[in-house]
């Protein structure tokens, strides 16, 4: 009798979890779809997000019999494709899983990790349950501990991320990639050969080329696409193979190009252009870009690791031997990465300045997930640097719930008004020439 009751309790909890999870995901997906100005060809991305979060389906497709979960941008997808598995980014933005994980993880852990812990606890999310292996780069303390927690449900490989990016660090990371390669081979049963690795380079390179085209089109003035839609596209990349994603993105690029010819833009109004940076924004936690764009701003640039930045840098093969390709992967994973886990991260400031110049940014929103210390540390320096350029910055701290939405809305509204006030008397928003 007791056992039966316990079972029903668990079942009820599970049902409630699934209901809540699908409802919130469907709601944010609907809000994304309702936002005006989406280009043609967005369907594959919406469908993917819907399949994963609303229908709660598996991610794998085609010839891939295994999926490998990855966490940060340092994991090279090429290696996983070469082993015949499909990489899936598991960084989570799920509110429902967060509320479960809140009880497991310590109070000050970041919501992203709490959400991952929540999914692990419930064991209901197929994308997580399906993984044959999880690769966790240790970019912060929370990631380190979650790697330990995940390891009793699934095989886990940790990648040690060095504090600097010197030659020795790159070499050490290359060695780690070699041992990761062995683990991948054991899991999938396929051997990574020169041929399969170069195929994987082509596949990911193609997707990256389409991404760079997309970003080039996105930079056009006036805007051809909204930042929230771009974020949906980039978030969908986590659950699609690089080939499929590249093809779908190619169609979006084509439709953006016809928009240039037809002089069609997202809006005729001059919207304040905002750069979003800081902690990752993962679907369905897209409340901040949505709030910006629903309140009359436009997310013109994003410097977050689930966004433009994560896939921007290609692995450049400078030496076409097998070892040369592995070096290229290690080099790409560490050197261009503006993740605040590195001790000296001044290149992130340059990257932000570059985005400000290219996208003619008028204001920067610095997003910090509560408990995300490394990003919070860098806020002060970026505020100082941007202060010198006269660009307003605000720090928005948010959590994975909907309770802070009204508070965020007020702050974002005020920020956008501030920018509008600044731009009105001048009437011009000329390109910034130099810093």
């Amino acid at each position, binding site marked *: 009798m007791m056992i039966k009751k316990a079972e029903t309790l668990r079942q009820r909890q599970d049902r409630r979890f699934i209901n809540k999870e699908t409802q919130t995901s469907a709601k944010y997906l609907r809000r994304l779809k309702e936002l005006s100005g989406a280009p043609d060809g967005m369907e594959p991305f919406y469908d993917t997000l819907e399949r994963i979060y609303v229908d709660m389906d598996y991610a794998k497709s*085609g*010839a*891939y019999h295994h999926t490998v979960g990855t966490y940060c941008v340092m994991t090279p997808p090429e290696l996983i*494709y*070469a082993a*015949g598995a499909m990489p899936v980014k598991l960084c989570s933005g799920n509110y429902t899983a967060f509320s479960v994980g809140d009880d497991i993880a310590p109070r000050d852990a970041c919501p992203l990790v709490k959400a991952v812990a929540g999914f692990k606890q419930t064991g209901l999310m197929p994308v997580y349950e399906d993984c044959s292996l999880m690769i966790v780069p240790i970019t912060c303390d929370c990631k380190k501990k979650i790697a330990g927690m995940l390891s009793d449900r699934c095989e886990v490989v940790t990648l040690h991320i060095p504090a600097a990016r*010197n*030659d020795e660090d790159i*070499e050490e990371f*290359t*060695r780690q990639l*070699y041992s990761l390669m062995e683990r991948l081979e054991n899991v999938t049963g*396929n*051997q*990574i*050969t*020169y*041929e*399969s690795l*170069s*195929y*994987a*380079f*082509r*596949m990911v*390179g*193609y997707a*990256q*080329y389409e991404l*760079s085209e997309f970003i080039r089109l996105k930079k056009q003035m006036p805007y051809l696409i909204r930042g929230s839609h771009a974020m949906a596209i980039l978030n969908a990349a986590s659950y699609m*193979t690089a*080939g499929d994603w*590249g*093809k779908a993105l190619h169609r979006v690029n084509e439709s953006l190009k016809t928009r240039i010819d037809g002089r069609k833009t997202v809006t005729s109004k001059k919207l304040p252009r905002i750069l979003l940076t800081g902690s990752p924004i993962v679907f369905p936690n897209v409340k901040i870009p949505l709030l910006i764009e629903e309140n009359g701003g436009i997310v013109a640039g994003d410097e977050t690791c689930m966004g433009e930045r994560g896939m*921007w*840098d*290609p692995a*450049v*093969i*400078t*030496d*076409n*031997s*097998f*070892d*040369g*390709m*592995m*070096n290229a992967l290690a*080099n*790409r994973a560490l*050197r*261009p990465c503006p993740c605040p886990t590195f001790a000296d991260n*001044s*290149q992130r400031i*340059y*990257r932000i*300045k*570059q985005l400000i*110049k290219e996208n003619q940014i008028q204001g920067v929103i610095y997003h910090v997930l509560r408990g995300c210390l490394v990003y919070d540390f860098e806020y002060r320096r970026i505020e100082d640097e941007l202060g010198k350029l006269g660009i307003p910055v605000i720090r928005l701290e948010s959590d994975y719930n909907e309770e802070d939405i009204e508070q965020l809305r007020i702050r974002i509204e005020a920020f956008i008004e501030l920018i509008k006030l600044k731009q009105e008397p001048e009437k011009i928003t000329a390109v910034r020439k130099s810093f």
Partner: protein
Amino acid sequence: MRSKKRIIITVLVCIGIGLLAYFAWLFPFYVFETNDFDTSIEKLLSFDYLKTLVPLFIMIGLSAAGIIMIVLLRRMLAKSDKKFSRFADVRTSRARGKAPKQKPAAFMVIRWIVMIVSAILLIWGGLIFGMGISSLSIPVLSCPWNTEEMTNSSCYYLSHLNELFELPIGNILLFFISTLGFIFVLGRVICGFLCPVGLIQDIMDKLRKKTNTEGIKMNEKMYGAITPVKWFILLIFIGLCFAGGNFCNFCPAVAVSPILAGMSTSLYVSGFLMVLVLMGSFFKRRAFCMVCPLGTIMGFFHKISLFRVKKDCQSCTECGACYEACPMGIKMIYTERDKADVTHSNCIMCGECVRCCPEDNALSMTFAGKKIYTSSRKKIMSGYEEVRNYYDDKKG
């Protein structure tokens, strides 16, 4: 403690090189009974030419054997030692398939054509076109013992300064004016475009890339360790003539140009060094250029040369691809964030950094302020057009 050890090793290596250079003439590598410096086009076409080429064949054979031995040794180690597993033959020996490769840029094609043409001119130019401009001196490591080269090489008088000042004043002036003129207009473009030793090394590198063999990856520490050796070789280059030695017995370039021009030349340590250069440049691109004394001298003038490498620091993402690609290991090119001019004294203007840079306009080569070669993402990605999945392909 560690640095002390390093200093001792460096000093010992330098002393070793010094002694070897001084007593080089005592260790013959290949000796003809008489050095026959006569050559003509008829000789090049006759059977005798093969006889003069014998030392060259020996050198090629020795370096091929050396390279194969190193590769095999590495594979043997890979089986027993995990540390070497990155060279494990299972992955590389059956290296079918091609790594994505970008379409050749016009700059690179021109560079190869210029290198080959200049090598031909510097070796057989005198025989074909006459000796019209042979009194001009180019600072290039093409052996002046080959009396048939189109122009003179500055390296002879730079390494025989005592002889230079015994020349008539007109010749001294001509030497300095032509050498400095070439350095001013071309700078180290001479290394990247004109030098025949550079061409040989680039061919070795191409061979390695064709066979997909793993190279030796140099890091900052190794480049740092080589720098004092480079300075010491420069010292030998200039100073040996005053101590009664002769740098030419030690110079690897002696082993190539005169022999190819049909002169039977005895080789001393130089021939042995050429084998090392061939082997070294197979595993590390332009290995000799790192210690080349003539290049070091040209590097002094890198600030006034008309060819420059420019960087748009705003577009750089510090991905380090340029540093990985650079055969000379110039790190400053990717860490620099203020200055637009990133021409380094070690830069040989090979354009590899521009070729590998994935950011539009981030790196460019300029001549007198005009851009001649610019980086572009589209070019980088031109090799990645295939979308197919390997495992789909295998099934179907």
